[in-house]
């Protein structure tokens, strides 16, 4: 794990009309760590992620990625930088098979727009094996026939296939059963082990305490705490989510546990 953040956001502000969704928010993710982003409904988690993805422009604030100051104007630009977002509602095509979904929009082809299936299939199998996603029977079956956990695995593996540096997961376990949740969390940990930066948005503190390296808490569009997972209890995090005071620290802080209590 490196100490210089892979993704660094500073002073992000975003308003929708008179509603201030984000006020002077800082956020960072290092390579090889799972940074959890938590907060109650309306805390600004999704807005922050959409700013990173280039879906919403920021009103103010700056973003650095891999040490470079960047401006992300569209989801395509985010993908180009190596930022991959796995959305809550998956964004897979049910009628297409696993390989086709993994390569959707970025198919391997020759100069005449003719698909090159064998390399795509081989690379898909390799990627799934490297992530130890072994429960999928055939990678040529339509994803409609997969379970929720398997579908989520495909969506996550797609990010890995494209050599992304940062993977943002929006509530990846929200719709899953216990066993499938475990399967996906295992996959999330493996992403970090492979050296990727992972941002995990979740409501589920149990999931977060199982996977996260650090935890960023947002409350009412402001930073309400940044914790090392090993040095904090669930009660403290819950307290920050529900009643945390704004903790605007100059510069990106290390651990500011005391500031929230």
């Amino acid at each position, binding site marked *: 794990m490196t100490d210089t953040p892979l993704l660094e956001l500073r002073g992000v502000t975003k308003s929708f009309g008179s509603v201030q969704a984000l006020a002077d928010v800082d956020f960072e993710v290092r390579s090889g760590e799972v940074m959890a982003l938590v907060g109650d409904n309306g805390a600004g988690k999704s807005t922050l992620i959409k700013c990173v993805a280039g879906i919403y422009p920021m009103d103010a604030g700056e973003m650095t990625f891999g040490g470079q100051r960047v401006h992300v104007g569209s989801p395509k630009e985010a993908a180009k930088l190596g930022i991959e977002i796995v959305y809550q509602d998956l964004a897979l095509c049910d*009628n297409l098979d696993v390989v086709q979904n993994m390569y959707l929009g970025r198919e391997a082809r020759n100069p005449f727009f003719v698909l090159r299936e064998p390399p795509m299939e081989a690379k898909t199998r390799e990627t799934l094996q490297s992530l130890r996603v072994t429960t999928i029977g055939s990678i040529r079956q339509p994803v409609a026939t997969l379970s929720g956990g398997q579908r989520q695995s495909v969506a996550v593996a797609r990010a890995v296939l494209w050599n992304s540096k940062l993977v943002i997961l929006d509530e990846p376990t929200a719709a899953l059963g216990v066993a499938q949740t475990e399967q996906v969390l295992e996959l999330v940990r493996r992403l970090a082990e492979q050296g990727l930066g992972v941002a995990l948005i979740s409501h589920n503190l149990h999931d977060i305490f199982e996977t996260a390296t650090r935890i960023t808490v947002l409350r009412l569009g402001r930073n309400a705490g940044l914790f090392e997972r090993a040095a904090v209890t669930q009660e403290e995090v819950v307290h920050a989510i529900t009643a945390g005071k704004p903790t605007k620290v100059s510069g990106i802080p290390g651990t500011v546990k005391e500031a929230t209590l």
Partner: protein
Amino acid sequence: MSAAGATAQTEVVKLEPLSQRITANIRSGNLGSAPVVVALAIVVVTFAFTAQNFWSPANFQNIITTMAGPCLIAYGVVFVLLIGEIDLSVAFVSGVAGVVVAQLQRPDAANLPWWICVLAALAVAAAIGAFQGSIIALVGVPSFVVTLAGNYIWNGVIFKGLPGVITIQSNQINNFSNYLFGTTAGWIMAAVVSVLYVVLMLWGALSGLHHGIAVREPIILVSKVILVPAIAFVTVWILNKPGSGGVPLGLLLMVGSLLIWTFVAKRTTFGRHVYAVGGNAEAARRAGINVARIRILVFTIAGAMSGLGGIVLAARLQSVDLNAGGGTLLLDVISAAVIGGTSLFGGRGEVRNALVGAALIYTIQSGMFIKGYATGVIFIVTGVILLLAVTLDTISRRLQVRSGR
């Protein structure tokens, strides 16, 4: 499959029981054209024994030339259905193409060479498709309404564009439906189609093996490689018999278009994106696919194929009149695509569905006509078959959702 990875290179042929595959296909809602091929076989056998003169080379050729125009239009409809839209204007767009071709060839007026007439008709039809597609994709008006309006508009254009009846006097244009290839040419065509098919199939399998991917269904691969050339040669053999007198150009257009559009749909990025847009347009958009562009192109294809079909239909009658594109043409072409197994819900179907669907519809119509049934009865039977086909698709879709949980 997942365990195959490293060992696949040595494990050349992985046998998967055929029955298991079929059950899996049915469970996943992937019936394809299987039911309609079975239905077609039953219909052909039944009429062969009960309808006089049905089982003859002349009638075989007659069915093929009758279905050629509608089948070409239905290929375009399959693309539209694949992206989950509908095009109700195809029949009258084909009529407009007929009017264009007829007007431009008039020896007493424009008197243009046949190929200019044909290209102009195709261009006009494609432009109509692109125009309607743009309204659908860029403005967001539902395709049902846009093409319903088009249905009226192009019907009106046909009325305004015709003095009554125009006889097509260009032999080259009339050849689009009526030309018969010589015996030798027929055999050559069968050979070319067979060789092309076999080479493509084997090349696909071999390049898969090269990348360590086992041949998934060797039994199916082998039977396809035997069956398709067999069908090609038997078809040519029947059409070369006395009474028919050769392979009609209409058949060549149907088979040629089938090969080209199947290649586009299954082997190109465009085709993949068509399926993606039909499966989940939002996912396609997030994956960076230009959804509007795909939609416009698909409606342009539907327009162009309507144009080609319209030329063939005009050539079959050797004239264009005020009924061009009317009657049951629209119902027939959409039914052909749907009966053939293309889902109305988008994302599932094949170009060949249109061919088998059209074959079923026009074989039934031919057989019942020969047996002397009234038009009303023929309509009722066609309607019942359409209903069965869509019901089957809906049920298989529900099964698919269930097997996904």
